[in-house]
């Protein structure tokens, strides 16, 4: 009996020590890790807009983030958009409370600096002040508008949808007419070599240039990927003189309205990504148009 007790205590103590060590290291490294993730997202966003180290982004390029909240007041639900605005030349925020049909219910101005708005806790604090209980609010999602000078360059939409095994996290770039500019897979745990191939250029670049009209009817087809298309898609492997400008334009036109060629042995993953992207674009376009209308109607000086 004493032996069992000693063993139990010994194991418990060693587990506790291990947990303590791991916990301590986690707390210490968490901040740096979050910073890395943030930088990684920034890098991805720039990459999706076609900027890289050899072709750096101009300094006028700005990312304006719009946060969407679901606000509940008793049984009724409202949509809340936290939108960056320009007020007397300074950057500030406005909170638009819309009903489900997209009619503006109330407009609040939120006093918050853009640097503070990055932190979820800061945003919540600011919203608590204007949305007093019993109203409750929950963060839903966000999207980013890339602005170059006074011109809107692209929408960047982070999203998540179920893949074959677990959730696939992506970042999607759309141009102002909702044509896909790029797709980046941020996180996935599909089978390596099969569904995991969704991260490869020859799959994810198939989405590039698909116009908004085509996206609604986008399907996955089980046909082998044509070799010229594959060469065109694998941009990182391009060599000088491999394609002339006319050839690029020709291939682009030819496959613009083509469906998505499934990955060999991973039809479900291919379908999951295609449908996920489709839904993201559809929902985003609907929300964006609604928000745009309200901003125009109310004459809000948005920062984008």
């Amino acid at each position, binding site marked *: 009996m004493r*032996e069992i007790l*000693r*063993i139990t205590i*010994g*194991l418990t103590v*060693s*587990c506790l020590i*291990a947990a303590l*060590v*791991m916990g301590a*290291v*986690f707390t210490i*490294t*968490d901040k*740096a*890790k979050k910073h*890395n993730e943030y930088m*990684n997202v920034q890098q991805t966003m720039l990459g999706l807009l076609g900027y890289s180290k050899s072709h750096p982004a101009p300094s006028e390029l700005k990312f304006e983030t719009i946060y969407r909240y679901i606000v509940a007041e008793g049984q009724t639900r409202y949509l809340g958009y936290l939108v960056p605005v320009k007020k007397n030349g300074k950057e500030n925020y406005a909170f638009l409370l819309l009903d489900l049909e997209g009619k503006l219910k109330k407009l609040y101005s939120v006093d918050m600096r853009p640097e503070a708005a990055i932190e979820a806790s800061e945003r919540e604090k600011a919203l608590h002040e204007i949305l007093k209980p019993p109203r409750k609010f929950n963060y839903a999602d966000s999207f980013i508008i890339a602005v170059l000078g006074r011109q809107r360059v692209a929408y960047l939409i982070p999203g998540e949808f179920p893949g074959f095994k677990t959730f696939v996290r992506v970042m999607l770039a759309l141009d102002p007419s909702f044509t896909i500019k790029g797709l980046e897979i941020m996180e996935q745990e599909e089978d390596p070599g099969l569904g995991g191939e969704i991260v490869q250029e020859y799959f994810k670049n198939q989405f590039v240039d698909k116009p908004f009209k085509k996206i609604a009817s986008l399907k996955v087809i089980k046909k082998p990927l044509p070799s010229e298309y594959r060469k065109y898609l694998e941009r990182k492997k391009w060599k000088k003189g491999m394609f002339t400008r006319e050839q690029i334009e020709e291939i682009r036109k030819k496959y613009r309205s083509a469906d998505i060629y499934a990955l060999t042995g991973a039809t479900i993953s291919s379908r999951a990504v295609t449908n996920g992207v489709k839904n993201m674009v559809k929902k985003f376009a609907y929300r964006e148009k609604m928000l745009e209308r309200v901003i125009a109607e109310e004459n809000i000086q948005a920062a984008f």
Partner: protein
Amino acid sequence: MATTKTPSRLVLNGLLNENPIFRLALSMCPAVGISTTVMNGLMLGTAVLFVQVCSSCTIAAIKNYIHPRIRIPTYTLTIATWVTVIDLVLSAYAPEAYKAMGIFIKLIVAFAIITMRLEVFACKNTVAMSFWDGLGMGLGFMFGMVTLGFIRELLGMGTLLGHNVLGFRPLLFFALPLAGFFCVGFMMAIFNYVELVFNRRKKRRG
């Protein structure tokens, strides 16, 4: 086992006499599975080296407090803790290296070679001794992985560290997992042969 335990002896022991892959034939699964390129071998080797040294020192330091009945769970726990710590630290402070090594580090928890070294050596020796032994074993593992990676990458893909050396692929078969066993067997033969020659010379001299 080495009769005199000087640091250099211990390191050499891990590298040659008791090379984890070629002499002890431990941790064959990852050795065969991952050693398809030099870079992969180097990455996994470095990760194992770190975990081996850290775990060996920890166990050597706390060996008197471990109840003999639960020593294996304690070893596993120690290794898992170190793996997690290294995983977290790398992902926070060296994201570039983490991108390349991330998947290898998590694999290490179940490595036979580390547990075996803790059981055979660290729990009977001082911290300093265990450090040198861990270093030797880690280096030995790294050496084995890099050698295997070198052979397999060169023959299987015609490249070295990603650079195209040969310009063609001599034997695609070497990139496949089963070729790993052939390579290991081949290296074992070389090791045994060298030992044979070495002993013969020693005898003649003696």
